[in-house]
């Protein structure tokens, strides 16, 4: 049962990730990223953290990717043009090789480290949202507040940068 779920969501995540990277249209990329993220949320759930799963869906897909979509629509980004000048085979191939080397090395290492080791069953204590909350709001209170401040700063900066982009943007914003 668990294996089946892992295979389904894992495959969904992988395939949609490839679509994210490979598709020329930003809209499609973004939407397939939604699939990846939701699949990952399901994996989070299976890994015993419903809190993260909920956050993943609410925050990532609900907020961040919506933001992406808005920006894409605002800028009216077209498909990437594929002119001869725009291609750079060296860049592409070296990226592919580098990524495969990295993935291969990491996979090899991980397999050597953990192999077929099977996890102990989940405990009630690990999954309980109450414990997660108390950890977040007691032990990690200061970083939590700082992240709040960071988000505030990010919002201010974002609104300033986007508003004062250029001379013509002044007219647009009025």
């Amino acid at each position, binding site marked *: 049962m668990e294996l089946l779920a892992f295979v389904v969501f894992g495959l969904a995540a992988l395939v949609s990730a490839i679509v994210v990277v490979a598709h020329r249209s930003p809209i499609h990329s973004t939407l397939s990223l939604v699939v990846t993220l939701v699949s990952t949320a399901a994996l989070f759930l299976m890994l015993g953290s419903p809190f993260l799963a909920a956050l993943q869906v609410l925050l990532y897909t609900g907020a961040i990717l919506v933001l992406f979509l808005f920006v894409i629509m605002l800028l009216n980004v077209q498909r990437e043009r594929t002119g001869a000048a725009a291609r750079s085979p060296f860049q592409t191939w070296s990226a592919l090789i580098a*990524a495969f080397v990295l993935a291969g090395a990491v996979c090899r290492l991980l397999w050597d480290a953990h192999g*077929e080791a099977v996890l102990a069953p989940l405990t009630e204590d690990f999954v309980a949202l109450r414990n997660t909350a108390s950890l977040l709001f007691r032990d*990690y209170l200061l970083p939590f507040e700082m992240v709040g401040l960071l988000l505030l700063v*990010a919002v201010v900066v974002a609104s300033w940068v986007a508003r004062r982009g250029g001379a013509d943007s002044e007219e647009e914003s009025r």
Partner: protein
Amino acid sequence: MSVPISWYLLLAAALFAIGAIGALTRRNGIAIFLSIELMLNAANLTLAAYSRLLGDRAGQMVVFFVLAVAAAEAAVGLALFIGIFRLRRTIDVNRINLLRW
């Protein structure tokens, strides 16, 4: 049947590699951004898996903060793209070569 922990980790590594390929090959700024989000997500998955393996919820806390920082990053990054687009009428990174000699 229970899933071995290494499968989660291998999946995360694969997602990370795909994200890296995207970040390095795409020319559309927003697509690069999406690829980076993908890589972040892969890292999150690794963290969550190790949290499960070690039975320590600190990994989950880190994932939480990564999500929050990703949100901030997305906000600022997208704002920058809007700004650059207003100046240059493009977000093709091949044509944004401000760092050239």
